[in-house]
C-alpha cells in the first residue's frame, strides 16, 4: 500500500487548479481575439482586443505559475500550445462560439462577474504568486465588467430586436452556469488551507449581481435549461477542439516559432 504525502498531493492539486484558472482566461481571450477587426465599430474593436490582451496576460502568468508548480519543465507556451482539449480545465462558458454581439457581451459580463469574485478571494491566497496575479487581474476584470454590463443593459433596453437577441443570448448561456460553481475539480485541501477558493461559495453573490443587472436590463433568466457539466474534468463541448486546432496549428507545425 502506498501512503500519499498530503503535502505533495496538495501541491500537485495546486498546479492543476492554477491551470484551470489560466485556461479560463486563455480560452476567453482566444474567443475575444477572434473579434479583432470584426467588431461592429472601431471603438468596440479596441475594447474587445484590450480585454483579450488583459486576459492573455493573466493566462500567461497563471500558466507559467502552473508550469513551475508542476515542476516538469513545461513553459506557459508548452501548456498553451501542446495540450489536447481533454487536458484543458476551463469552464465550457468560455469556450462556446461567439454567436452574435449580444452573446459576446453577455458572456464577457457573466465571466467578469465570476472572475471578480474569484480573484478578490484569491488576492488573499496563501500562495503568494497566485495572490499577486489575482490582485492585478482583479483590477482588469472589474474594468471589463463595467463595459460589458453597460452593453447588456443597453441591449436589453434598446430596440425590440436587441432585447430579443439579449434574451436569446441569456438562454444560450444559462446551461453553463452550474458548472462555474462546481468544486469537484479542486483538491479540497487547497480550499481548507486558504490557497484556493470554493467556487460554490461564490454563487449567491454572483447570482445577486446578475439579478440586479438583468432587472436593470429588463431581461429574465429562462431558468429551464439542462445544465452542462464536465469541462473542468476535460469533457468539453466539441467547440474547444476546433478553437485549439486553430490556435495551436502554427506552433505544432513550427515548434518554437517566434517573430
Amino acid at each position, binding site marked *: 500500500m502506498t501512503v500519499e504525502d498530503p503535502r505533495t498531493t496538495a501541491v500537485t492539486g495546486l498546479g492543476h487548479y492554477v491551470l484551470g484558472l489560466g485556461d479560463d482566461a486563455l480560452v476567453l481571450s482566444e474567443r475575444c481575439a477572434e473579434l479583432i477587426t470584426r467588431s461592429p465599430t472601431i471603438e468596440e474593436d479596441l*475594447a474587445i482586443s484590450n480585454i483579450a490582451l488583459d486576459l492573455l496576460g493573466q493566462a500567461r502568468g497563471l500558466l507559467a505559475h502552473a508550469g513551475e508548480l508542476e515542476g516538469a519543465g513545461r513553459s506557459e507556451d508548452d501548456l498553451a500550445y501542446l495540450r489536447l482539449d481533454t487536458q484543458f480545465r476551463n469552464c465550457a462558458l468560455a469556450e462556446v462560439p461567439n454567436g452574435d454581439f449580444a452573446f459576446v457581451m453577455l458572456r464577457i459580463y457573466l465571466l467578469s462577474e465570476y472572475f471578480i469574485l474569484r480573484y478578490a478571494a484569491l488576492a488573499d491566497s496563501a500562495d*503568494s504568486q497566485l495572490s499577486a496575479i489575482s490582485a492585478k487581474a482583479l*483590477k482588469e476584470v472589474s474594468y471589463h465588467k463595467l463595459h460589458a454590463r453597460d452593453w447588456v443593459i443597453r441591449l436589453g433596453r434598446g430596440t425590440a430586436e436587441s432585447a430579443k437577441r439579449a434574451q436569446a443570448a441569456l438562454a444560450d448561456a444559462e446551461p453553463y452556469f452550474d458548472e462555474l460553481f462546481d468544486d469537484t475539480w479542486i483538491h479540497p485541501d487547497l480550499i481548507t488551507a486558504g490557497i484556493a477558493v470554493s467556487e460554490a461559495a461564490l454563487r449567491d453573490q454572483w447570482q445577486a449581481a446578475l439579478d440586479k443587472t438583468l432587472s436593470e436590463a429588463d431581461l429574465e433568466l429562462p431558468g429551464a435549461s439542462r445544465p452542462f457539466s464536465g469541462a473542468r474534468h476535460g469533457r468539453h463541448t466539441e467547440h474547444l477542439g476546433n478553437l485549439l486546432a486553430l490556435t495551436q496549428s502554427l506552433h505544432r507545425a513550427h515548434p518554437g516559432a517566434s517573430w
Partner: protein
Amino acid sequence: MVNLEDIRTAAASVPDPEIPVLTIEDLGVLRDVAWDDAGGVVVVITPTYSGCPAMAEISNDIKSTLGHIGVHDVRVETVLAPAWSTDWISDEGRTKLSTYGIAPPAPTRRDGPVPLTLVSVRCPQCNSSDTKLITAFGSTACKALRKCRSCEEVFDHVKPY
C-alpha cells in the same frame, strides 16, 4: 567601477515604449535597482497591465542603456505585487503627460475602478472640464479616449487604475 546611483539614474531614464514622453520611473514601472550576490545588477520592474506587451521591450531597453555605461551583467526581474496603480505615476510624470496632450489620471479609489462616465477630466489643451468619454478602451491598455466639448479636441486620458 560604475556606482549604483549612476546605474539607477541610467535605468530610470529609459522611456516607456507606449508613452515615450514618460520614463519608466515617471510611470512607476521601475521598482528597484540593486547589486546581486554575484556582483551583477538586478533591475526590478512591474507591468502596468497583466498583458502589457511592452515589458519585453522595456527589459531589452534597460539592458542596452546600462550596456552604454559599461554595465553588462544585468538581470531584469518582473514582479507583480504590489499591483501597479496609476497613483504611482509621479507628479513630474503627470505634468509631462498634460504638456504632451494626455490627460493624467485622477487618484484611484480603493474599492475598484470608477465608471469612466462619472470621472470629471480636464481637457489638456484648453483646461475645460466639459469633456465626454468617446471610448473606455483607447489606443493602449492604460488609456481611454475623450473629446473636449469646449475646443472640440479629441485626447487620450490615462484612466485611473
